[in-house]
């Protein structure tokens, strides 16, 4: 009897999990379906059966250069993630293992910078970028993306580091480990899943960031977000082409996410089960 209940439960949960997963994935799926429709089909209401035309992909490829924005996306997301980690790992480490009475306030203050809508600081930032010669440069955009994601990175790492028992570090110290030895041989191996998932999430966030990447670039450093935006048209049908461009733009990050999902899930649930 107990077995029957648990099987039924399993089925219910499986169906529920699949439904939620499908619900979350559906917009992406529909984008892919729309990308192989004709423009007429794309705008004429909901339909899951496309006519499997690949002319949108051909047109998207011939109309604009895909590889330059692609390279920019790769460079910007990797570089900004790297810089953010270089700053955030020591910061989170200090906050987790030697907290002061003000640590919580500092963390809260860092997060509060995310509460302001980006457009509120568009003009000041644009002026600073203009004066510093950073408009349409990878340097400027890397700086911007690093700053945007830094609070989240620090917060995530802080939560992961907090899960590492301080006693282990003390034990290492008792055994005569130096500070670097402590970091290299004790802390890092334990924190790697957390750092890895933070890194992956940050790459995804940086890859998808569209507000600043469209507004602070023109051509040289414009990433794939700008590539997608260029296919929207005021007069003329564009949904299918836009979907094809979007599919091309999200494919690399989707593939990366697919291959690293084990690390992502492990990192995100790290410390959840004791």
């Amino acid at each position, binding site marked *: 009897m107990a077995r029957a209940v648990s099987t039924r439960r399993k089925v219910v949960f499986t169906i529920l999990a699949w439904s939620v997963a499908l619900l979350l994935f559906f917009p992406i799926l529909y984008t892919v379906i729309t990308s192989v429709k004709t*423009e*007429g089909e794309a*705008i*004429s209401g909901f339909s899951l059966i496309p006519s499997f035309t690949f002319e949108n992909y051909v047109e998207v490829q011939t*109309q*604009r250069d895909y590889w330059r924005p692609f390279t920019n996306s790769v460079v910007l997301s990797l570089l900004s993630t790297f810089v953010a980690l270089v700053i955030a790992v020591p910061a989170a480490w200090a906050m987790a293992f030697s907290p002061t009475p003000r640590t919580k306030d500092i963390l809260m203050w860092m997060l509060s910078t995310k509460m302001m809508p980006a457009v509120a600081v*568009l*003009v000041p930032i*644009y*002026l600073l970028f*203009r004066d510093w010669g950073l*408009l*349409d440069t990878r340097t400027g955009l890397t700086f911007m993306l690093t700053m945007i994601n830094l609070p989240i990175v620090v917060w995530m790492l802080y939560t992961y580091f907090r899960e590492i028992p301080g006693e282990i570090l003390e034990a290492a110290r008792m055994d005569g480990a130096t500070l670097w030895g402590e970091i290299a041989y004790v802390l890092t191996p334990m924190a790697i899943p957390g750092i890895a998932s933070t890194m992956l999430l940050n790459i995804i966030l940086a890859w998808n960031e569209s507000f600043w990447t*469209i*507004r602070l670039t*023109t*051509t040289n450093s*414009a990433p794939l977000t*700008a590539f997608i*935006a*260029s*296919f*929207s*048209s*005021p*007069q*003329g*049908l*564009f949904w299918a082409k836009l979907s094809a461009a979007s599919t091309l733009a999200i494919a690399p990050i989707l593939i990366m996410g697919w291959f690293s999902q084990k690390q992502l899930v492990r990192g995100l649930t790290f410390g959840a089960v004791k």
Partner: protein
Amino acid sequence: MNLKAILLGACSAAVLAGMAHAETLTIATVNNGDMVRMQKLTDDFTKANPDIQLQWVTLEENVLRERVTTDVATKGGQYDIMTIGTYEVPIWAKQGWLLPLDNLGADYDVDDLLPAIRSGLTMDGKLYAAPFYGESSMVMYRKDLMEKAGLKMPDAPTWDFIADAARKMTDRSAGINGICLRGKAGWGENIAFLTATSNAFGARWFDENWKPQFDQPEWKKTLDFYVQLMKDAGPPGASSNGFNENLALFQQGKCGMWIDATVAASFVTDPKSSTVADKVGFALAPDTGLGKRGNWLWAWNLAIPAGTQKAAAAEKFVSWATSKHYLDLVAEKEGWANVPPGTRTSLYKNENYLKAAPFAKMTLDSINAADPKNPSVKPVPYVGVQFVAIPEFQGLGTTVGQLFSAALAGQMSVDDALAQAQGVASREMQRGGYMK
């Protein structure tokens, strides 16, 4: 080995020297057919000007507006040439954000530009932007459905005729709606259409003292007429239909009539994408006998921002892209039907063009019938047919557009929508210092 190295070094130096001389122009533009075509044909320009290179930034219309406005207002210098609409040109020129186009070249023939279009781009006798393509609005209708309804479309119809025909053509069981009109909220969407239409009904946005006029009977008549007509003969969900949605409906044969931009004519008569390509007729935008037609005037133009360091090269390109030579080039490579319309008088005298574009005469008549300085029956303090050329209009127009769209969707009454529009517009005019 040494010789090789020297030769290689010399070659690289030569290349670098060449690159140092080459100027790169950055051009901001929207993604429409004519602009995409131009990007394909620029070899003609770079061959004649090997020291100038071009790079394009294509953006969605609203993002483009925001980007170029930020850049031009802060003198960011990111763009050397901008694609801007007729709405922006007078406002930006007044702010000193645009350079006047004084050196378009001897063979440019400024006087050949259509007077209606040119006047909207001129301030104090100086041209601040060169039109790349121009448009007005007109009636596009299905000849077969009109015949079936036992009617004949006059060249210059009245709104009463249009409403009557729309109701007669409607056959909802067959999925045919008598008329498709814009309903999607936005200053460039439903407000463009309704402002132009209201002119024909004798309404205006503001009186001579900038007092909003939504509390006047002319606006009530306009909006009542529009909402009732769409209820009787419009497609379902019309309040979310803009240009593209109506284009799709018309191409699929679901609209008896569609009143919109003249540029749509080339889409609906294209047999590749339109199922009704051979059944479309054209007529002037309707009037109500008051002497004004509800047809608008718009052009996408190329302008040079004051922050650019490459003004001379930029002007060379603007001159090339809006010249008679460019029209000939498009005709030669892509056929006369694909030539960007609505900018030059000479194009409408060209036999080849008139033969290839059956809608040419109607486009020209529609453009000529629009008068941006006197858009409505009564006098107005502003310039613009389907917009009011003041900086506040983008925000105000969109807010009013949302109210009118809600009235169309049945979420509020016409009276409420107009009363709220009056309130919003009055506040905005007081805040802007227009109205004491």
